[in-house]
């Protein structure tokens, strides 16, 4: 609609300032004149005013459960207020960080050594298993040839377990019967040898890192800590589910991989949390 002084489009442009009450004299008069004549715009202003008024009167909401327990458990750890932190503590903070860093390095080095030694011995065994089967197929040097891809993949994957399904992931090229059986031989023997002891090593590192993170909880930003804890719960759930599935099918390389992957993620997250600067 249009009247003598203002169109609806012009009114729409001036509307936010009109609602705020910040229009200057001449424009305000034009808007008020338009409102007297235009039903559409008058209705719009009335509705928006009602929304504003209703919003200010909205009732309080109530949580669906008592949140205090969750809060209490999070504040149970002693908090050292930054402003009141004694100078002595601050002076020793770098030394503490140094010890924590050294502990991390020693633990990580130990795990790396253990896993590397284990995977090296595993590789040798797998190569020995694979070689006769691979020899049945001539290596043409053509990277697209199924047999060469398969043999290469199986040997390579002794360090990094292959997925159980031959139709997905890096083993997609496996198609020859002898290669498939070779792959199965590797996937059937490796998990029981590798997962159980390495899981113990993981547990050790996780416990050590968890201890450091627990000690540092009061130094970390609560929002960051909440995110870390939420993610840890998700990872723990994945670990539990993988273990349960692995208990039913101990020979599954896929499940073994899932478990290792979840444990890796947990170590990585805890390590990151342990090394976060204070108040981040």
């Amino acid at each position, binding site marked *: 609609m249009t009247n003598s002084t203002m169109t609806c489009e012009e009114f729409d442009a001036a509307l936010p300032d009109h609602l705020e009450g910040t229009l200057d004299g001449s424009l305000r008069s034009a808007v008020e004149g338009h409102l007297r004549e235009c039903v559409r715009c008058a209705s*719009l202003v009335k509705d928006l005013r009602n*929304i504003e008024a209703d919003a*200010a009167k909205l009732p309080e909401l109530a949580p669906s459960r008592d949140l205090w327990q969750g*809060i209490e458990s999070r*504040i149970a750890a002693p908090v050292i*207020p930054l*402003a*009141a932190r004694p100078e002595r503590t601050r002076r020793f903070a770098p030394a503490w960080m140094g010890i924590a860093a050294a502990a991390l390095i020693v633990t990580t080095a130990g795990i790396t050594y253990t896993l590397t030694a284990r995977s090296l011995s595993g590789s040798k065994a797998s190569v020995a298993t694979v070689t006769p089967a691979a020899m049945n197929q001539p290596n043409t040097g053509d990277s697209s040839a199924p047999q060469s891809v398969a043999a290469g993949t199986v040997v390579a994957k002794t360090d990094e377990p292959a997925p159980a399904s031959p139709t997905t992931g890096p083993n997609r090229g496996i198609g020859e019967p002898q290669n498939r059986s070779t792959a199965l031989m590797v996937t059937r023997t490796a998990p029981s040898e590798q997962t159980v002891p390495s899981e113990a090593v993981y547990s050790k590192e996780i416990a050590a890192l968890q201890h450091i993170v627990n000690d540092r909880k009061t130094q970390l930003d609560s929002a960051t800590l*909440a995110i870390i804890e939420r993610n840890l719960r998700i990872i723990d759930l994945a670990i539990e589910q993988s273990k349960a599935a692995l208990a039913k099918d101990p020979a599954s390389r896929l499940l073994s991989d899932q478990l290792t992957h979840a444990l890796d993620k947990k170590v990585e997250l805890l390590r990151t949390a342990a090394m976060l600067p204070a108040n981040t």
Partner: protein
Amino acid sequence: MAAAVLSTVRAPMGDSGDVALAAAGDRQAFERLYRTHSSRVFTLCARMSGSRSRGEELTQDVFVRTWEKLPQFRGESAFSTWLHRLAVNVVLNARKTEGKHSARTEQSDVEDERRDEMSRAPLHIERMDLQAAISKLPAGARRIFVLHDVEGYKHEEIAEMMGITSGGSKAQLHRARLLLREALQR
């Protein structure tokens, strides 16, 4: 506009004793403060996040943060006002942190809201109540609408808290009101 002022007026007289005790580490006093203010904090968190479940998580974050920050409370304003401002900051910072870590976009935010229980209004309804309509707003417009029209903050205050211009705040507020009108008339 009046809501923020009202929150201060509504604050119980006994707060200052409990605030002092809680600042000194008295958890029972802090629980009393929680009982007194939890509904108001939850309301703010749930409305700003557009989700009751997220509102509950954020409420816990707010009170943990309050516990940590209480020794710094100087009593220059009412405790309820200070707590309210801290709650707004926690909600806004949580959004930034989530954005940083998961690269969530406004679009994904809206999609999340659609899945949320507050947004599960039947499609066939003729009129939607204001609370449900607010939860369906895009995140940016929703936060500004809640802060301005529900909580009573001024555009300048919102601009400062959110790191935007007051013109941007006005524009988002107007957009939110128009979207609400459309939703309520459906």
